[in-house]
């Protein structure tokens, strides 16, 4: 009989410990949630607000009818700055290096996590020519360095200006 009791006590302790481990894991998961990927998005939308029907030809001085969409998925509030630059076929830009051109126009907005910001371009080009490259770089304010930094996200549209 005492041997049976010891065996039963051991089983009880094993069951109790297992139950507590499972409950703790469930609690931890419900409190912290699964790890989420963090990223920012910039995209160009056509005149209808959709990713279609982009203009390819505009007249000198004509206001370009397009929209820029910025989305925050960084799991925190972000201060975004969109820089508009006008380049051509020779302009060099990458995910690590922004284009070494002067900024024609700057747009800025603070976005909460999972918030999106869509705004009209309201830009025009006064230089005639083919293969104009409208470049939009996404920057963000880094409070640790006290300045804005390039996120590596950029979009472009090729335009002929007649």
């Amino acid at each position, binding site marked *: 009989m005492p041997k049976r009791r010891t065996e*039963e006590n051991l089983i*009880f302790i094993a*069951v*109790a410990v297992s*139950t*507590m481990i499972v*409950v703790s894991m469930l*609690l931890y998961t419900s409190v912290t949630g699964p790890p989420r990927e963090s990223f920012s998005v910039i995209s160009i939308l056509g005149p209808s607000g959709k990713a279609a029907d982009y203009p390819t030809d505009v007249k000198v001085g004509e206001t370009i009818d397009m929209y820029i969409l910025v989305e925050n998925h960084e799991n*925190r*509030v972000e*201060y975004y700055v969109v820089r508009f630059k006008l380049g051509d076929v020779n302009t060099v830009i990458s995910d690590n290096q922004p284009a070494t051109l002067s900024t024609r126009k700057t747009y*800025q*907005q*603070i*976005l*909460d996590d999972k918030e999106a910001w869509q705004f009209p371009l309201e830009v025009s080009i006064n230089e005639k020519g083919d293969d104009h490259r409208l470049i939009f770089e996404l920057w963000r*304010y880094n*409070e640790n360095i*006290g300045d804005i930094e390039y996120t590596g996200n950029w979009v472009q549209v090729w335009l002929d200006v007649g």
Partner: protein
Amino acid sequence: MKKKTVLFLILASLIVLYAGTLAYAESPQASANRAINEAQDSIYSAYKSVAQADQAGGDVSNLVDQLNTAISLLEDAKDSYEQEDYSTANEKAVEAKNIAVTVEKNADDLRARANFTRSLQMIVIPIIVVLAVIFGFIFLKRGWKWLERKADEEFLEMEVVVPEEEEE
């Protein structure tokens, strides 16, 4: 002769004073430029506080809206500056700065409150968990004993049944 010298000295002093005032007085353009830079710095500083409040777990959506209003005013100020309307540029930049300063103060308060709530949670949650574990353990132990007793009772209530032999 003496009178003339005194008059000359007074006049010269006035001219020097006027020239000095002109030299130190800010032009409307410089004033607007300074106001725009100050507004931008205040917005950056306010954002820093908002980001900290956000990381502390505070609800910053209202502060973000206010700060975006300040950004919008700053953009208007820059547009006015480009159109050489320095008076409007100065006015809008000062307004943007005032909003940013208020947002920064509110964000700091929110961060302090969020940190306090978080600290409280850090104390209360472990206490609740420990109590839950103790009560859970007691509950399981009692349940286990009840099952054991039930099994023993069932064992003791068992009867030996001997099948009757068929008469030949």
